[in-house]
């Protein structure tokens, strides 16, 4: 298809209308030529000969009559070795490289190659000439950090192909040809290790999609024990500002037991990404002994960066996640925050003068959110191995009120809900996941009966607490008071976790099981106290002992010593 050309007829904010000749595609990328600059834009509506386009950059200085060049390609990312450890903006521009070239600021209209084209990769072929292949078939692999990065037949090639030639084992850059395949009509296609994929189209090259079963260990106790997440599942974290959404996401990205983490910082503060950016390269992943950055991709479109690219950033994240899932890896995509993405949709919708839905969000908000979360999943691939993409999204509801369109649309499609509460955050109870409101449809690794029991104590304790606010402590029976103390104890020593302490920040599976059993002993124990003062004192003391225990390294001398102190305390 010939590339079309056009001319700008109007400009308002980042929305332009373009009069074009020839043919264009919905979601096609075009470039606005203004002065010396080329500003990237995407077609979002076509009517007669006018294309409505959102510009991915600031439109200052753009004029009516400026030329637009269409690319006849949808908005795509490059998939190939070298993605891990990268820091991209929403359009897959590598930010550190931009910083090298342009220093402090992000210039307009600059696009850099997302993958290092000079780097040589040691390619090992897995397939011989004459073999029959289809999209997604591994042709060979390279070692990318600790992972085997499979080089696959591009996902956009339909039908069966025969391998005409493949290179020998050796070092190749991503630009070099590594194989040639032939379709049934005899046309040959030359392949490199890289191909493009449109970000708004889910990759569906897998064989089968399964129900998520296996728990994803986040090492956050309240999540793993009470509201677990499954590999290939979805979850959301709605919460008002200041409730600790981002800290929770950061802890998850750091400690979760998963192969690859993709952090999509979408329309949030730049400062938050910086911490990940600067600290991850120095942090060691305990499972691999390598830097955490080697398993991480950061897509960073912070709030001051152009709005349209914000929309792209979550899709870019999902696409990269699906790509690595296709290699049999377990991937976790953390999107922070999906509300900013929804707001970006709202801004665009408003400029298109679409009829607004609730709170002026477009009518298609729900289906867009559903589509996005449905890109997650546990799938089997070519060699029957399984890979998964888990999606966790934060939601920033206006006014902290969960009855708003984005939260509600998200709750419909996720498997677990970790609702953060402002009250808990104000009381400095972190993570501030509200145990009363949250839920999960996934199975955890701790005996469900025990968890149920613990939850009922939390519930009853909460009821007693509410009651006590009305009738006062003296109006409460000692039995009820003990239930309240037990609930408070469980909350402060197990549900709460100090994310800033090296030991307490991450509790692995075996420690969770071990400590939870000890907690069950306390919860099941019949206490007999004469007076409430005495009961409170005892429980405070016990709480103190457990909190100190949380700071001891699992299995260490101090840990055992403290356990002994606790056991002795419980004996008496």
């Amino acid at each position, binding site marked *: 298809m010939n590339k079309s050309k056009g001319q700008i007829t109007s*400009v308002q904010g980042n929305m332009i209308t373009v009069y074009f000749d020839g043919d264009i595609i919905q979601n096609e990328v075009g470039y606005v030529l203004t002065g010396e600059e080329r500003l990237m834009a995407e077609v979002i509506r076509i009517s007669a000969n006018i294309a409505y386009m959102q510009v991915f950059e600031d439109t200052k200085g753009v004029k009516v009559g400026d030329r637009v060049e269409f690319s006849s390609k949808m908005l795509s990312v490059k998939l190939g070795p070298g993605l891990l450890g990268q820091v991209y903006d929403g359009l897959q521009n590598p930010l550190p490289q931009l910083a090298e070239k342009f220093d402090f600021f*992000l210039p307009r209209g600059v696009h850099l190659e997302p993958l290092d084209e000079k780097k040589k990769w040691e390619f090992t072929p897995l397939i011989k000439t004459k073999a029959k292949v289809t999209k997604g078939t591994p042709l060979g692999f390279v070692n990318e950090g600790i992972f085997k990065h499979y080089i696959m037949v591009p996902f956009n090639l339909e039908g069966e192909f025969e391998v005409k030639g493949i290179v020998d084992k050796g070092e190749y850059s991503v630009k070099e040809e590594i194989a040639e395949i032939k379709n049934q009509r005899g046309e040959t296609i030359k392949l490199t290790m890289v191909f493009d994929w449109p970000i708004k189209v889910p990759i569906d090259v897998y064989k089968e999609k399964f129900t998520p079963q296996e728990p994803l260990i986040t090492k956050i106790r309240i999540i793993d024990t009470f509201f677990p997440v499954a590999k290939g599942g979805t979850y959301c974290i709605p919460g008002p500002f*200041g409730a600790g959404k981002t800290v929770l996401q950061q802890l998850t990205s750091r400690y979760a037991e998963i192969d690859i983490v993709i952090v999509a910082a979408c329309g949030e503060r730049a400062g938050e990404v910086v911490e990940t950016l*600067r600290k991850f390269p120095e942090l060691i992943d305990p499972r691999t002994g390598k830097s955490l950055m080697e398993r991480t991709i950061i897509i960073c479109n912070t*709030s001051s960066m152009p709005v349209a690219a914000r929309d792209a950033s979550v899709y870019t994240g999902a696409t990269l996640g699906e790509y690595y899932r296709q290699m049999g890896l377990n991937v976790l995509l953390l999107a922070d925050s999906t509300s900013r993405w929804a707001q970006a949709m709202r801004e665009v*919708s408003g*400029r298109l003068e679409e009829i*607004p839905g609730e709170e002026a969000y477009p009518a298609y908000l729900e289906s867009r959110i559903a589509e996005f979360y449905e890109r997650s999943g546990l799938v089997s691939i070519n060699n029957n191995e399984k890979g998964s993409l888990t999606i966790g999204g934060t939601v920033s509801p206006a006014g902290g009120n969960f009855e708003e369109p984005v939260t509600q649309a998200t709750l419909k499609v996720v498997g677990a809900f970790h609702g953060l509460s402002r009250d808990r955050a104000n009381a400095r109870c972190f993570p501030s996941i509200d145990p009363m409101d949250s839920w999960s449809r996934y199975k955890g690794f701790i005996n469900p009966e025990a968890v149920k029991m613990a939850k009922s104590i939390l519930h009853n304790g909460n009821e007693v607490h509410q009651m006590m606010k009305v009738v006062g402590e003296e109006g409460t029976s000692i039995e009820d008071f003990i239930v309240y103390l037990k609930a408070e104890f469980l909350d402060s020593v197990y549900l709460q976790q100090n994310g800033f302490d090296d030991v307490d920040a991450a509790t692995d599976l075996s420690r969770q099981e071990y400590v939870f059993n000890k907690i069950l002993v306390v919860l099941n124990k019949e206490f007999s106290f004469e007076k409430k003062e005495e009961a409170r004192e005892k429980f405070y003391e016990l709480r103190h002992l457990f909190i100190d225990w949380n700071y001891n390294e699992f299995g260490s001398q101090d840990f055992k010593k403290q356990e002994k102190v606790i056991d002795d305390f419980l004996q008496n």
Partner: protein
Amino acid sequence: MRKVYSKILSIAGNVITVKAKDIAYEELAEVKTSRGKSLAQVIKLENDTVSLQVFSGSRGISTNDEVRFLGHPMRVAFSDNILGRIFDGSGEPRDKGPTLTDNLIEISGPPVNPAKRIIPERIIRTNIPMIDVFNSLVVSQKLPIFSVSGEPYNELLARIALQAEVDMIVLGGIGLKYDQYMFFKDTLEEGGALSKSVFFMNTASDPIVEGLMVPDLCLAVAEKFALGGKDVLVLLTDMTNFSDALKEISITMERVPSNRGYPGDLYSQLAKRYEKAVDFQGAGSITILAVTTMPGDDVTHPVPDNTGYITEGQFYLRGGRIEPFGSLSRLKQQVNDKTRKDHRAIMDGMIQLYAQFKESQEKKAMGFRMSSWDKKLLKYGKLFESQMMDLSVKVSLEDALDNGWKILAECFSPGEISFRTDLVKEFWPKNK
């Protein structure tokens, strides 16, 4: 010489339209009316119809007034000469000094590359214990002061301007009452801080559209000083007026409103300004403190709500004090482990006890019997409020921490409060 247009097609709100060709988006124009000259900015281009928002408002504009396009976007003069000067929302002098025309810089420049940002690590001491001890202000932080009309937020801002350990102050007033403007001017003059300050002042009697420019002017100037190695503190008051100005323009332009009439891009507009806060590696920094009054004391109102999601925490100013609950400096963890080793323990412990005090106070108000523990808490609460929370308290961070231990020792025994044993050993006042 650029072409002059003398046919204004429509005038609605503060927006006028003219027919013109080859005009750039966000370009400036000068409108000459019988009342004088005013700047205007292009906010929409549609074929050859150009919409402009007129800074001085549309009142008195005639359909045959002259519109001259200047061929450049909004700019502001930048040099060391602007120190100690006061400008209005168009960048024109408000004081009696000369108009500055040298070294003009464009405002609202490109965003900072996140890859070039560094983890904030320097505390800005203000000698206000509620800030220094409990919610430390950090270089490159952006923090709003959530308050309601009638609270002394401008007094607080002025005190911070005087006491904060920074190289420069840029103060932006948006829809500020005239006496408040004079208050700032006089206070900074008396405190001897005027010579390291720049003011961009839009008062309530000035056109509100001009107020829209104030944050951008302040931040453009601050950015240049920061790149020159200065630690700049930008103080803005009041960002709710800024948002209301955005609302006004948006409604005039017949855009679909999202929430209570505010435009759908309110979040992005605010973020674009606040995100200018930065610590430039190897150069200076910008820190932003901005007053946001909450209409009806409602934090879920779109302006404070969107602000809260953008900024790195917030201070609540209520009853003339910085509230310990809800007030949060998200960056304090970056700095408060390097000050003194009891800093965090005092910070957490005292607030937890204060929360318990509040509960006891509530119980007392409802007529329940006070236990001995309750009584201790009540005593503690009083001391905490008078020696820590009161805004007139001016002490260094270290003295404030010592005071904290004193208050604790006056009310409790070490066993009653959950402080780490090693800290109690070292800091608990011995003579008690």
